[in-house]
Every structure is written in structure tokens, then in C-alpha cells.
């Protein structure tokens, strides 16, 4: 037993006092996730606001946790939610079951379903954790129109699918294109060429504050 044995035990304690703290100041300061973090899902829209979801249920089929329930519906000329014949009339994701594996977004044939970085998925009511279509749909951006409405960007769904990337680059719909925009606030505040500040702000709101 040496003289300093009693103090030596505090060595770790003392040295830690001078290290950087690992405690997060959450929820006052939100954690910024990795860009490809599997957060809450989002149902994307075409640049004119029509839904990309065609109600094909492939996400539900791919889901290993049986967390997704979809029912298709029939688009009509009077009431159109998506280009083409079919849209997702009912779309529910049960976050009590979702394991965030991302197989659903791999399965999506229209890139309708993607995942945001939103991770605050706790609630005190089980029923509220079954997100329906209204809560999953991406918010309407400037230039978008709340469906149902006719196809604004072409005469049939091929125009949306085949010329989609081209349309996305066109200046008049550029502001509205969200999918190309990173979901986290960029490290450099200066906006990239072709990405407007407005859209970036919108997306940062999306990734953090858009709860319920």
C-alpha cells in the first residue's frame, strides 16, 4: 500500500474532467445525423405536387416487420393523385413495428418512399405511432399544388417517369425539387449553384421540426 494509493484511484476521474464532454445537450441541441441515417419515412411528390406513390404495395411486401399497410386506388380524370392509373389510397406505416431497415425504400419502384433524418419517433400513444398518408407525405413546396389535380407536367405518366430528371433540372421547377437536396443543413451555409436558399431552409425545417 503506497502513500498515494487512495488518490490514484481518482486518476481517471481527474483526467476526464479535462476531456471534451460526451453528454449531448439534447433536446436543446438536436443531434445532426449522418446524411444517410434511416429516419422517418417520407412519401415524395412530383414537382407539380402529384404523389409519386402508385400504391403498388411492394414496400409492404418487402417489409420484414409487416409495418406497412397500403391499399391502392383508381385515379380518374376528375380526381387524380398521381400520374398513371393507380395511387396509394391508404398508406400507413406503423412505427411501433418499423425496424428502420430500409428495405421498403429499396423496393419502391418510383422513388416515392424515401427516409428522412427525422428520428424523434417517440410518443405516449400507440395509436399515434401509426402514421398515415397525411403525415408521411412530403410538404408542398412552392410551385406544388395539393392533389387531386390533373397532370401539369405532361400528358401521361411516361412524361413524369422518362423525363423526370430532365424536368427536375428545368429552372421553373427547380425550386420545387426536393429529392436532390440534402436533408441536413449544409456545413457551408453558402447555397450551391442551382439550389435556392429557400429550398434549403425548407429542408432543414423538414428534417428537424416537422413533427406531427
Amino acid at each position, binding site marked *: 500500500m503506497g502513500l498515494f494509493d487512495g488518490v490514484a484511484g481518482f486518476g481517471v476521474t481527474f483526467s476526464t474532467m479535462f476531456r471534451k464532454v460526451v453528454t449531448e445537450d439534447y433536446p436543446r441541441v438536436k443531434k445532426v445525423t449522418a446524411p444517410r441515417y434511416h429516419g422517418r419515412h417520407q412519401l415524395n411528390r412530383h414537382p407539380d405536387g402529384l404523389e409519386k406513390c*402508385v*400504391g*403498388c*404495395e*411492394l414496400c*409492404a*411486401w418487402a417489409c420484414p416487420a409487416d409495418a406497412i399497410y397500403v*391499399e*391502392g*386506388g*383508381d385515379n380518374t380524370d376528375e380526381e387524380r393523385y398521381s400520374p*398513371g*392509373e*393507380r395511387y396509394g*389510397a391508404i398508406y400507413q406505416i406503423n412505427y411501433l413495428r418499423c425496424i428502420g431497415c430500409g428495405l421498403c425504400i429499396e423496393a419502391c*419502384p*418510383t422513388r416515392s418512399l424515401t427516409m428522412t433524418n427525422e428520428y424523434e419517433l417517440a410518443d405516449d400513444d400507440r395509436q399515434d405511432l401509426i402514421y398515415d398518408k397525411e403525415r408521411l407525405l412530403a410538404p408542398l413546396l412552392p410551385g406544388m399544388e395539393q392533389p387531386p389535380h390533373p397532370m401539369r407536367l405532361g400528358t401521361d405518366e411516361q412524361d413524369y417517369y422518362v423525363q423526370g430528371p430532365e424536368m427536375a433540372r428545368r429552372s421553373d421547377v427547380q425550386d420545387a425539387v426536393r429529392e436532390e437536396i440534402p436533408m441536413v443543413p449544409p456545413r457551408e451555409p453558402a447555397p450551391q449553384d442551382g439550389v435556392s436558399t429557400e429550398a434549403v431552409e425548407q429542408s432543414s425545417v423538414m428534417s428537424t421540426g416537422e413533427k406531427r
Partner: protein
Amino acid sequence: MTQAPEKPSEQDDLPPVPEGHVRLTIDDRIVDAPQGELLIRTCERLGIVVPRFCDHPLLDPAGACRQCLVEVEMGGRKMPKPQASCTMTVAQDMVVNTQMTSAVADKAQQGVMELLLINHPLDCPVCDKGGECPLQNQAMSSGRAESRFVEEKRTFAKPLPISSEVLLDRERCVLCQRCTRFSRQIAGDQFIELLERGAHQQIGTEETAFGEGEDFQSYFSGNTIQICPVGALTSASYRFRSRPFDLVSTPGVSEHDSSGAAVRRDWRRGAVTRVLAGDDPEVNEEWIDDKTRFAFRYTQSAQRITRPMIRGEDGSLVETSWTEALERAAGLLTAARDGEGPAPVDTDGEALEPKRGVGVLPGGRLTLEDAYAYAKFARLALRTNDVDARARVHSGEELDFLAAHVAGTGLGVTYGDLEEAPAVLTVALEVEEEAPIVFLRLRKAARTGTAVHHLGQWSSPAVVKTGGRLVRCAPGREVEALATLPDPVADGLAQPGAVVLVGERAAEVPGLYAAVSELVARTGARVAWVPRRAGERGAVDTGLVPTLLPGGRAVDDETARAALASSWGVADLPATPGRDTAAILRAAADGELAGLVVGGVEIADLPDPDLARAALGAADVVVSLELARSEVTEYADVVLPVAPVINKAGTFRNWEGRDRRFGTTIDPSGGSAGRVGGTAATTLPDCRVLDTLAVEMDVDLFTQTPEVAGTELARLGTGRPATVGPVRGPEHPDQPETTDEEGTELRLASWRQLLDGGALLADEPDLAGTARPPRIRLSATTARRLGFAEDDPAEVEGPRGSLILPVEVADLPDDVVWAPARVPGTDGTTVVTLAGLGLGHGGPVRLGGGSPMSDGSPS
């Protein structure tokens, strides 16, 4: 590749080729195949799957899609090109190499697949066939991973409704012609055809070709949807409702007719999303009619009763608990049975003889088990034989006929017998409208040489499509027509294996059942009774008619009664034969019977709806066991909900006498899968409800579940026991009186059409859209005499009302009017029946709205 050097040595060891067979080599395996077998079937038997689209075992070979190419070698020489294995028959010493062993065949198949996919859209995610699509599967198994086709695909407008049920997507079509071949060969409705040529070749109807024309009107159109190997034909009612991979498929039996057709019910979240044909070669092969296929939403109708109801003090029905409802029903029924109800008073206030007894009208849609429970309930709990399942035209003569030829006879004439028969005569049976699966078999038989004769009034579609052999007679004169059958018909029926099919409508013509009985005795033909409803045959065998006990035992046979009483564990059974449906209703209306227990009976179906309403109004006690609110509900004191066929197990005994067992499709008590999104109600089968009701009346039925009831019935036996003496044949009643004004008075001929707004067709607008439009039919001479042109509105006038329908000229006898027996109203709920107008088949009728008004406005 060739087997030639090895063959002699191998064949030395092999047994000789059986008679009528050939020996060939497929993929290096030596196989014996019956002569004439198609190569693709032989491959199937060996477990070699050759991809195919157009090939269907029940359709004639077409060789349309070319997907099944294989390499064939005959006599040591290869055929210059790969051959379609679905059209080539086997031959001695043939050497076949499929894609498994031949690079040539594999390359040929890949090439065909690439060609078929050139114009096929990439819309699998939104296609209803996606997930169960032969094209999708085979493109994955034997197609290319990458498309080389970069040009624009051919497009068409889509979806194109070719009827209110079937949607056509021409882009997806691979021109396999299964649908057109089905229409031509099986159903006989040629409304869909291959049009145009080359790249523009497409499936279409008259309407798509010329802009106008008839719809794809067929009672079997749904089968084309099922056999379409791509998503070119899809169902309007199933459109985008779900994907095959989230459906649970449960085998079942059709509840819509007496065919006993095997079906497959696909369901999800407590609700059936579609019904498909099951595969039963002995019964329906792989086909069902559209009523069976598309009418399934009645279980979710807003009219469904899911909770027991009793009539409150204020006269309105209120929902209540099972306990209270059963107690109330038992109390009322016991009082009514024993005549302890309120004594009726006459107009002067004098007390009359108290009403006594309860009549039972269970309806014709019961499973065998439920029917047995009803029969036992009537005999033990209500102590009566006043029970009759025949909610339709009926007669005492029919009871004799049923006792002699149907009850307890087991499996009689079968579908297979129809196919084999040299001649078939249908009497009082319009097969396509009243027994569609029998029609399909008769049509198949007619195509292979059976002479199918119809005793009827005009060349209806069924007559035309089964060979056009009509024995035309005036309505009501069927008895004479049977006595004086033309020689070819009589000779045909005298051949061994000939069959006479008699429909339930024979009861409309006095003496017709007797005449049929006489005819089969005279010619030696076999006879089968083909009723319309699913439960009719079971009801006869379980004793739901007033003169028969379960198993075809006669009520007035003392030994049979004693035997049944001892096996039921009671001292005795009611000995007097009961009243039939009409007599029960008459007795209730006249104040003799105090109560009625009514099952699934529609008042409009009864021979005298007004009498039925009077009876239900006059009865002290009406207990209704129903699926959905009906007209009876308005009169009921207690309403007990019962389970639809999808929520219970059971057996339908079809017209052949074949037991068609089925399990529960959706068990509402079996966890969330059965409840969520569907009807949350856990309704009980009739046998359970009756069992519990009987317990309240201090009687044990032992029919708590269909299984228990079925076991007891099986132990009892529904075959006629040896102790029963020979049954009485029907006595020949008086001939119908002839009219004195022969030639001037019109006679009515009538039968029900398949889709005419029945209770189980609720909530099916797409199906109703393909119903045959109701028409009045007249001969050209009569139409001219009365001043009607085609499509003129005419008014059928009966003693109790009239009905206006457009006129169509057909080959009826002169002075005969044909009208459908039941016409759904435009709103889909109200129906007009000829019986309700006081009219009947063979009876006199007046026709209003002739020439003076023919150019006036139709109503």
C-alpha cells in the same frame, strides 16, 4: 445429343410399350405416353416445366404464343426448326429436347419471350396481375435480364371496359387467345375476338372495332380474367384492391346455386376481395359463373344484421344481448307452440279458439348441417312437421316426386354422367339462367356428340349454345309435350345413360312431375332434379319438407319415425305430415298458426307475396334468423343474426347429391386478421343459434357446431334406410283446364334470370351491369297481331299490377308471352315479380300498350 446408339440396349431391358401408348425420349429420359397426348403434357408428367401462355388443358390447342418451343427429332432427323410442344402430339421413337437439355430450344424460348415483351408495358407495379402473372414469372425464369428494345412501345387507350366487370388493357396482351377460345369453346358467347393484323393485332369487341356494338355480355366472362396469363383482362371490382401476396386464399364452395362449384376465396383484413374458380374436374372443372365470382360483398352490406334485436314496447326493433333475445324468442315460441298466447277476438269482441303451433320457413340457402338443425328444431322444440324450405313455387306433387326420386338417393346423376350421356332432356329448367355450371357441362357434352334437348318455349341462348334442339310447347302444356315427344327425342332418351334433368319450376305446371316420372319409367332414362338454390337438395335430404324426415324417411312411416325418435332420444315425433309453405302462410294468415320461424326467405320469392305479408302480420310471434335486413325483419318480434357461409364451416349437398364440404373462410373470432376492416361481428351459424334457442325451450338439439351437427347427421344417415317401403310415385293430377277462347288469349311463359337482384347480389353494381336486360318476348305473328314492333314498351298486366318492359321478337309459339319472373328495380332494391303481380307460368296474361300506344313515350 441423339440417343440412337444407346437405345437398342436400353430398350431391351424395358417392358413392352402398353397398348395405345408410344415410347419416346424427353430430355434423355425414356417415357411411355398415351397416343395423342400433347408433348407439353408429357413433359409436365415428367416434371419438366416448359414455359407457356396459350396452352390451357381445358381449351383446344392453339399454338398462338410460341413460348413452348422444344427441339424435336423424328426418325433420327432433327426437325428444321423448334416445334411448339403444346400443339404437337407424341409419336413413337420421338426424341424431344426441352430448354433443359437443348441450347437451341432455350435460345428459341428466350427469343419468343423477348418478342412478347417488346410491346408489353413496364407497369407490373400497378398491374393487378403483378405477383401472380405467368408472364412476369416466366420472364424472370426464361427471359433476358436487360431489354434490347429501345424504340417506342405501341400504346393503346387503357383500361378499356368491355363490360362493367371486365377491363381490357391491350398493351399488356400477348395474343395467346385464351379468352377468345374460352368464349367460343366453353361459354359459347362470342363477343370477344382477335382484330387487325401484324403489329396492330389486338383483342377487341364489336364496340372497339366499329365504335358501337354489343358489350361482352356473358355469364362466364369472369373466367377470362382468371385464365388471362398477363394482366390484359382484369376485374373491375378487384381493380387495385390488393396484391396477390397479401391475400389469404381459402378453398370454398359456391353458395349461389346448387352446382356445388369449388371456389377459392381470397381475403384480407376480414373481407373477401375476390372469388376465383377452384379446380374440381368432377364438378365445375375450372370454371364458375359470374354470379359466384363477383357476388361476395353482401356480407359487408350496410343491411347486415350483426346483433340480436327484439321488438321493444314502442314497436321498434332494438339491439340487445344474445341472452335476452334468445330468452324472449324461446318464451314467445313456447307460448305459441302450446297455444298460450293472447286469445284472438273476432269483430264482435268474442274470444275465438286460441292460435296454436309454429310454422318454420327456413329458406333454401342452408348448409346441410344448418338444415338438419332446423329439421330437428321443428320436430323437437316446436313439435311440428310444419316446416318447408321451398321459398318458391311448390306443389304437393313435387313432394311425392322428391320422395320417390330425390330424397335419400345419394349421389345420382353426376356432371360426368351428363358428359357421357347420349341424350339429355331438360324439363322446366333453363340451364344457363338457373344452373350455369350444368349448362357448361351440357355445352361440353353437346360439343362431343350428346343430343341436348330442351323442353321450353323459345330458342333461348342456352338452347342455341347447346345445339339448338328445342322441343317447343305452349306454357302449361309441358305434360302433353312429354307424352308426345318427337321420335328422335324419345329414342334418344331410351338409350342407356340418357338423362332427364327437371328443374324446380316443374311445380308450376300441375302434372308435370308425374309426367316426368312416367317418362323416365317409360324410357328408362335417369332423372335428376336441379333446383336453383344451394341448400335445396340438402333440405330435402335433412327433412326440411313437411312429409319427410331426415334421410328421406316418410313422416307417415311409423317404423322410420320410431327409429328416428329413439336415435334422437325422445318418446315420439309428430306423426301427421305438416303443411307446406303455402299452407303454413295460409294458416298463419287465417289465425290457425300462432307463430312463424323464418330463415333466409325473401317475401318476393314466395308464390304469393301478399299472402306471406298477411301471414307475417297476423302471426303473434315471428322469429327471424337472418343475415341482413329484409322485408321479414319489419314483421319480426325477435331477429337473430346468423353467419354467412364465409364465417362458418359446412356442407352444401349439390344437385348431384354430392357433399361439398368447406371450412371457415374467415373466422371473425380468430384474431385480428378476421376482424380488422371487416365486419367485426362474430355471428353464429344457424345450427348454433337454433341449438341455444332450443336449450332455452328445454330441448337439446346437440347441434352446437356444424361439425357436431354433421357428425350426428352422418351417424343417422341421409341415405334411405332399408326399412322404408317403396315410395309412392306422384299421382296424376287433373290436366290444366283449357281455355275456351283458344287462340285469342295470351299465355305466360316465364323463368328467373341469373342476375335479377337477389338478396346475395347486394352491393355489386359491376355485376348488375352485366345482367341480361329484362325483355318481353313474343312471336313475330303475335307481335304483329298486337301491334308491337321490336323494342316497343309493352305492359304485362296481372290481377295485382303491371310491369312495363321492351318487346323482343323470338321464336315462341303464337299467343305466348315470355317475361322474366323477377325484375330488379332501377334503384337496385325494389323488385317486381310476376308472382307478385298474380301471374304464373302457363297462366293467362294480358298485354297492354299495343299499336295505339306503340309510338307513345315509354314509361
